[in-house]
């Protein structure tokens, strides 16, 4: 159920408000709002699993016209319903291949996808503000409306999704028939006139908490990025910047698509991600790493991507310890990226000055010499499956944990702890940290922190 958050109001405001309004300031109902045929609707946020873009439906023959088909949501097959067709509202025809906006709803027994015109934002209101629907409501059958609420000058019709999707069969028939009749009428229309857009005005604590929730969800949906204690310090800082940036440019704080998510994460990536590491990073990192004990320096680099980091760490260690053997176990679960890693194509100028003598000319341009290449073993591997690794001196896992949920992060950190030799070092992304310090000793340099296993 929705948390009951109390909005913090300063005393002057309190004095100005009567009891009625004070009750209204209790936000205990949050809904995801969207538009259908130019009007505003809302669905209880507890029923919304995620916000989605539906790109490719599989059409299912002989179904009601409002059933757009089935959709593969990361392995789960869900049905997708077009709410506009279902409620006989004008639907703007999308071009072929253009993704549709939609929501994934969590019903009592299953999940269902619904297509809408435009997702708006999350709105928090007091449930006492919700008014029952008036019987003469037009477009949508009154029994599917749980109420109407006003928020910042806009009226939202709150849909009762449980009623809509778990109705008795006779109702289903009638609505299907109605939509079928509607489907025979010409349906393509000019784009529905945009609903009046008034920017969210205030930013009280509640508003901020809601924005935070929504951005957190957006990051998980659009970028597979999970906000957890691993990166929450960065996230909170970034959230403030982001709010300022977006308000300055007059845009909504919430993330609407993958581009927004990418923009938000712009400052997350560690230094020299997707490039060879340059001298400043290498020097500082080497100064923080423990002096390796044995003749063989074992390094594990899960989530290595195309392998820039793996080459960098191998080259750096070989330069620093020329008389020892270096072994870098590099893995990624992205088959495309990891397949290019062993024969990475780059130009000489991408490689720092100090490592130029490690390069030789191959048939696709420069490549690292055999000593560096033989030091690295690229594997198609998922860090969650890792087992039976040899004991490591160093683990380099930059910007990897944030792509996993919290439970998986804990499991991976546990694996790191088991796999490291005592005194071995764990290198995370510049904006990531381990959960709790008990097992780890923090070694902090000018701009970098390394975790030593106690």
């Amino acid at each position, binding site marked *: 159920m929705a948390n009951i958050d109390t909005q913090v109001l300063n005393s002057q405001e309190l004095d100005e408000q009567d009891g009625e309004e004070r009750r209204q300031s209790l936000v205990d109902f949050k809904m995801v709002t969207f538009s259908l045929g130019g009007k505003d609707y809302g669905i209880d946020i507890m029923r919304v699993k995620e916000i989605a873009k539906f790109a490719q439906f599989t059409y299912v023959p002989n179904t009601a016209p409002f059933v757009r088909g089935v959709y593969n949501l990361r392995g789960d097959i869900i049905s997708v319903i077009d709410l506009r067709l279902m409620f006989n509202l004008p639907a703007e025809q999308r071009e072929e291949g253009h993704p549709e906006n939609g929501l994934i709803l969590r019903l009592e027994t299953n999940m269902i996808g619904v297509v809408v015109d435009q997702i708006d934002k999350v709105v928090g209101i007091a449930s006492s503000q919700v008014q029952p629907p008036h019987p003469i409501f037009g477009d949508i059958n009154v029994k599917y409306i749980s109420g109407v609420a006003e928020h910042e000058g806009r009226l939202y019709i709150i849909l009762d999704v449980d009623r809509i999707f778990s109705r008795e069969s006779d109702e289903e028939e009638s609505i299907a028939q109605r939509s079928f009749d509607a489907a025979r009428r010409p349906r393509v229309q000019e784009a529905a006139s945009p609903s009046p857009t008034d920017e969210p005005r205030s930013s009280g604590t509640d508003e901020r908490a809601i924005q935070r929730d929504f951005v957190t969800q957006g990051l998980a949906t659009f970028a597979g990025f999970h906000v957890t204690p691993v990166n929450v310090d960065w996230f909170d800082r970034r959230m403030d910047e982001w709010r300022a940036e977006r308000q300055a440019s007059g845009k909504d704080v919430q993330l609407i698509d993958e581009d927004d998510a990418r923009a938000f994460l712009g400052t997350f990536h560690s230094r020299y991600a997707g490039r060879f590491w340059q001298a400043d990073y290498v020097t500082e990192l080497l100064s923080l790493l423990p002096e390796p004990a044995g003749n063989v320096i074992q390094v594990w680099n899960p989530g290595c991507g195309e392998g820039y980091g793996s080459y960098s760490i191998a080259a750096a260690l070989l330069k620093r310890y020329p008389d020892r053997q270096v072994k870098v176990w590099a893995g990624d*679960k992205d*088959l495309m990226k990891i397949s290019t890693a*062993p024969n990475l194509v780059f130009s000489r100028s991408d490689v720092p000055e100090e490592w130029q003598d490690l390069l030789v000319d191959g048939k696709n341009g420069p490549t690292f010499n055999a000593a560096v290449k033989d030091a690295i073993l690229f*594997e*198609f*591997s998922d860090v969650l*499956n890792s*087992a039976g690794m*040899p004991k490591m001196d160093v683990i380099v896992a930059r910007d990897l944990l944030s792509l996993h949920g919290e439970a998986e992060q804990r499991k991976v950190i546990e694996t790191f702890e088991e796999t490291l030799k005592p005194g071995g070092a764990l290198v995370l992304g510049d904006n990531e940290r381990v959960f709790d310090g008990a097992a780890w000793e923090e070694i902090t340099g000018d701009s970098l922190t390394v975790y030593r296993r106690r």
Partner: protein
Amino acid sequence: MRVEYINPFVESAYNVLSEVLQTEVNRGELYLKSAAMPMLGVAMIVGLAGDVEGRVLFDMKLETGLAVASAMLTSMDMEPVEELNDMARATLTELANMITGQAVTKLHNLGFRFDLTPPAIFSGQNMEVSDPNFEALIVPMELPQGKIEINVAVRERT
């Protein structure tokens, strides 16, 4: 699994299957798995040793196995099989041997030293396979006779 090992296995599975069955073969999306997984009914296993340790498992339904064995036998002017008899078993283990053998030859040419163990065949209902310390690469192959899942689990000797 080392990146360089993936292609030899995928290619030789594709080549051998389309050659001996004279039919269209579609490769599904490759993926990784480590937990215990149910088996379909008939499985041939070939062990790998040398630079690496591990095994290759070919998993399919009984009907698929019989249809594949029959297709191989009829192409050599022999009688098709109706049940999993000695002839069917010998034919299927030979298929496993051909695919793994070709993959190992390709790997040899790339400079990796692999040895094979003789194949074994398992059959039965409700079986599961698990090797907790291995991550397996699954190569699904779609044939007109049904699906064959090739489950490759190898790791470097440390």
